[in-house]
């Protein structure tokens, strides 16, 4: 299982802040997970499109599409940050 977190506008658009997912053997990196989630359709496909501005972190470090993910990881998707 992996934990997937959603923040801010993305959390509201998807209607959830976190979920547990059993990682399919075919998914080994962040892009693979994003495509898996986008295949749910509706807001998932709109928000997690490959050309979108959504950022991601793996185990609380900023990550890119080819960052490897594995069972037990904490993955987060979120819009560009706007703090300070």
């Amino acid at each position, binding site marked *: 299982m992996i934990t997937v977190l959603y923040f*801010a*506008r993305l959390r509201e658009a998807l209607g959830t802040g976190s979920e547990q997912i059993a990682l399919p053997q075919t998914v080994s990196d962040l892009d693979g997970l994003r495509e898996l989630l986008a295949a749910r359709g509706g807001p998932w496909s709109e928000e997690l499109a490959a050309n979108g501005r959504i950022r991601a*972190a793996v185990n*609380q470090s900023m990550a890119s599409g080819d960052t490897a993910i594995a069972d037990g990881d904490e993955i*987060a998707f979120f819009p560009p*940050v*706007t*703090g*300070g």
Partner: protein
Amino acid sequence: MTVRIQAADFDIGSEIAALRRANPKIGAVASFVGVVRDVNEGGAVEEMALEHYPGMTERAIEEIISQARGRWNIYDALVIHRVGTLKPLDQIVLVVVTSGHRGDAFAACEFVMDYLKTRAPFWKKEKTPSGARWVDARASDDISAERWRLKG
């Protein structure tokens, strides 16, 4: 270094005093306070909600401060960032840097703020007369952070 994410307000004077901790080598204290304005991008702002990513936010800011330590001679740094509901005039963020000399203190303080704006996971949602809206990231903030790659 000290990093605190909190809903409560902060007192600049006592935070600076605590960071100086009676260290007589400190000659310079640079600080910055970010404040909620009643307008943003031309529209009125009644209040805002700040969301963060508990755990990662603190780690990201600690990493930013570590980078500043590597680039300038500083003694210590403090970042306090508020989350939750804030109104115009409320303080949002405090950055304080202590150093022997002012050049290092100013540079490190501005560096930490610029990187915090682009690297630390916080998101602002503004409540305006025409409804609530998530604040978009500003290209100017990316430029502010990027220029530190070129300078020393």
